């Protein structure tokens, strides 16, 4: 008989520390909700500054998510494929994709400026043909894509790996053409991973602050996204800041709750 893991209760120390951990994660959000100026909320949210920031945030995060899907899925395929290849290129590739996750976003913004700024590595060439990216809406999208793409790549890579390539071999032996294997086997097996990755990507892009304010600045209607607007309002108009924060929280929660459990990372199917 296998020992049942659920029979053994976690000890007191585990419960206490887990409780503190959970409190650390949840209590700040509780404070946010409790302190929110609920009475004035409709008026605050209807203000042009808030609507502008909301529209910009949703729009740029959506475009960034599409960019992450278009660029990230092939990268995930490459990464999954590299598992069978030499160790050094594989580790370098994995490290390169991981960097934006561990890098402070502000540093990412500085790096983007040094690459795409007017005197940047590529930016000086772009400037010659009349393209200036920094402090534009496309810069917001680039910054969000930079920080969000790893979430998509790793979610899809995980799905590709658990979707055993040999299922494809089984489909081959049953007479399926390459296109049929992809459509009837690979895609359905990987779809939950792609969906989970896209959602993580979208929420990460929505919350992006450091890289955006460094690389794209804070121009109302152009680059001032919800997190930036909220941060700026904190000094002058805390009620608006809290209202903006609530909007961000609500959007993130809706997106997460809209997913079925099996599409969330760390949940076995």
């Amino acid at each position, binding site marked *: 008989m296998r020992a049942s893991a659920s029979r053994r209760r976690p000890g007191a120390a585990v419960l206490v520390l887990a409780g503190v951990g959970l409190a650390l994660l949840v209590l700040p959000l509780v404070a946010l909700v409790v302190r929110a100026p609920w009475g004035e909320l409709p008026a605050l949210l209807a203000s042009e500054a808030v609507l502008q920031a909301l529209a910009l945030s949703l729009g740029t995060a959506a475009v960034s998510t599409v960019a992450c899907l278009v660029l990230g899925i092939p990268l995930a395929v490459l990464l999954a494929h590299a598992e069978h290849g030499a160790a050094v290129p594989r580790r370098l590739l994995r490290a390169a994709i991981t960097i934006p996750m561990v890098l402070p976003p502000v540093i990412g913004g500085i790096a983007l400026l040094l690459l795409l700024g007017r005197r940047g590595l590529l930016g000086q060439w772009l400037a010659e043909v009349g393209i200036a990216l920094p402090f534009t809406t496309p810069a917001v999208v680039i910054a969000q894509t930079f920080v969000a793409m790893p979430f998509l790549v790793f979610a899809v890579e995980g799905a590709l790996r658990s979707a055993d390539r040999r*299922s494809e071999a089984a*489909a*081959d*032996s*049953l*007479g*399926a053409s390459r296109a049929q294997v992809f459509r009837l086997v690979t895609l359905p097996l990987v779809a939950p991973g792609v969906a989970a990755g896209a959602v993580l990507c979208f929420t990460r892009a929505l919350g992006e602050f450091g890289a955006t304010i460094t690389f794209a600045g804070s121009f109302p209607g152009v680059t001032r996204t919800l997190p930036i607007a909220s941060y700026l309002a904190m000094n002058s108009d805390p009620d608006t800041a809290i209202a903006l924060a609530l909007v961000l929280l609500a959007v993130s929660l809706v997106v997460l709750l809209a997913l079925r459990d099996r599409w969330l990372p760390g949940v076995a*199917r």
Partner: protein
Amino acid sequence: MTASGAAPGAAPGLRVDVAVPREAFDVVAAFDLPPGRVLGVVGPNGAGKSSLLAAIAGLVDARGTIALDGRDLAALPAERRGVGVVFQDLLLFPHLSVRDNVAFPQRVRLGGWRAARAAAEPWLARLDLTALADRHPGALSGGQAQRVALARALAAEPAVLLLDEPMAALDVEIRDDVRADLARHLRAFGGPAIVVSHDRADAEVLADELLVVEGGRVVQRGTLAELAAAPASPWVARFAR
């Protein structure tokens, strides 16, 4: 032997004469297998048995000849060889129901699910799966999953059937029953069939004849009794005893 089938003058059945490149050593094997016979490929772990099966199915590259009734299969991709495989870990499609797993081969042939599902019904019935048809593979016992894998392979109406360690994934208590069941279906199959195993009971119950592979080479071919009478290696002696 009389000539029949596609190629005039060719003996009916499967003819294999291949070298399968592997990291440690190439797997080299040559044998003929008439229709209706079940060849047990036995040998120690890592001997190259599964590589040999994968080569016949077209799932790994190999040099040499793989011919069925005189028709060369070696140049064909896996999906056009007509070689059915029951994989060691079955590789059922986890996102498809039992019915759709079994319908899959006809789905890719016919282009639609409705006709494919109809075509799957007799196979579901024959392998006693009708009551399980709406379940997904994750909700099956080992023996049930194995029957689904066999039904799926047979539903493709393959000319050759390959089974890789068909008992390995099963609980010991049910192996005898499943094995007897499998032997019955192998008899009914009619084409050449190959069963890879390192288990003496599989060799005894499932196979008409055995091919012993050790270190990538064929060391002996014969019935279990012949192997026991004159073992060609210490492994054969221990296996056939």
